[in-house]
């Protein structure tokens, strides 16, 4: 689904891999080793070079926004551009099926962003992206601010998406999470990307 060949950007050695539909790659490594830089380059949010294709179609044939609608980057600290949660959704009804599963009430539509907790924002940002039905999900520590129960809920939700044919890249510090979620596991250490071999 997502094929990456010779991806280069400052802070990373060239990277090549193929991520198929229904696969989940996990990436771990020390802070500042380049995990977020890789996700940002894959989403084309920072200047980078390399041959990337999505379902065989080269990235250059997509506009930036078209590419990023299909390959969504979920930042570790998601940004918010309006005062209330509901304003960040085209149609908040689309969020309803997810809210309950992630322990959020429907009234959160009217919550003010500044009064939500880090964990609530993390889950809401996940929903905000999931309803766009991206083909590739680039998750940057999506459960870092969640308790065990909500971590499981998020893992199940993402796994469901994976089994429906989405491709996932999941950055995590938690080796147990990497074991649970990863169909293949990778590390980045000082910009070197490599597969973890047992």
């Amino acid at each position: 689904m997502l094929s990456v060949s010779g991806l280069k950007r400052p802070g990373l050695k060239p990277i090549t891999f193929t991520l198929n539909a229904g696969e989940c790659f996990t990436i771990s490594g020390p802070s500042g080793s380049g995990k977020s830089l890789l996700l940002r380059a894959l989403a084309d949010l920072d200047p980078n070079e390399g041959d990337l294709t999505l379902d065989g179609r080269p990235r250059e044939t997509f506009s930036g926004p078209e590419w990023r609608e299909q390959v969504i980057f979920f930042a570790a600290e998601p940004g918010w551009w309006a005062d209330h949660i509901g304003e960040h959704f085209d149609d908040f009804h689309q969020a309803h099926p997810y809210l309950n599963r992630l322990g959020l009430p429907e009234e959160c539509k009217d919550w003010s962003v500044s009064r939500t907790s880090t964990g609530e924002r993390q889950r809401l940002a996940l929903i905000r992206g999931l309803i766009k039905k991206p083909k590739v999900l680039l998750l940057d520590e999506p459960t870092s601010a969640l308790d065990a129960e909500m971590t499981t809920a998020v893992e199940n939700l993402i796994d469901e998406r994976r089994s429906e044919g989405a491709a996932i890249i999941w950055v995590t510090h938690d080796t147990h999470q990497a074991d649970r979620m990863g169909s293949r596991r990778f590390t980045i250490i000082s910009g070197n990307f490599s597969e973890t071999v047992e």
Partner: protein
Amino acid sequence: MNYVTLTYWDLVFTSLLVLLNAGISFAFRLDIGGKLLIAAARAVVQLLLMGLVLKTLFSLSSPLWTGLAALFMVLFAGREIMARQKRKLSGIWAYGLGTATMMMASIFVTCVALATVAPTPWYDPRYALPLLGMIIGNTMTGISLGLHNLIETLSRDKSSVEAQLALGATKWAAMLPTIRNALTTAFMPIINSMSAAGLVLIPGMMTGQILAGADPMDAVKYQILIMFLIAGGVALGSLSAVLGGVFRLTDSRHRLRLDRLEPISKSQ
């Protein structure tokens, strides 16, 4: 003309007020007495020089020299725009964007003004230079406020702009609130001064014309004209500067490119 000509002794006499002020701040150790005296001395020297330059330019009434004076004013104002930015665009853009947009806006609006007032000859420096000066002064403020606000907001709210881009928004959709905010800031001074004109303040130019013996209604007409010109110059200049800034700080792949700002200097 029927106005009272001032002698230099009149100025010496009124300068006692400045000295009095400086004396008070020295007495209370306010630390600004020195600055006040230097500023007053600068004003005297700069204005006397300007008087000499204008006198020469008026007597020459040459398109070449008038044009050179105009160019000098524009380039100097461009430097001022750059100096007012806390974080600058990198490279030639730091000076170029503000200067180019201000030059475009102020020269265009001055031409509109000269076409309206229609002095003979049309480049008569007695009209062209003061009009250009007033337009430049205000356009410069608008552009520096607009650019400053744009850059500050983008540096502060990077994550909220990128959150929209990451979900597939175009750069224009993601930047619209920022653009709106920057333009509101840029337009605020001229909107305020138009709203307050005639109620709170008698604008400086009108005061001058009235002192010089003009009919108050004639002075009012000039003042309204100049305010419209300024509004036009500010709008045109800050709109093109802010859009130019957005153009430079994003790219064709709709990414936010804050790497095109000068790095934050550590000395600040």
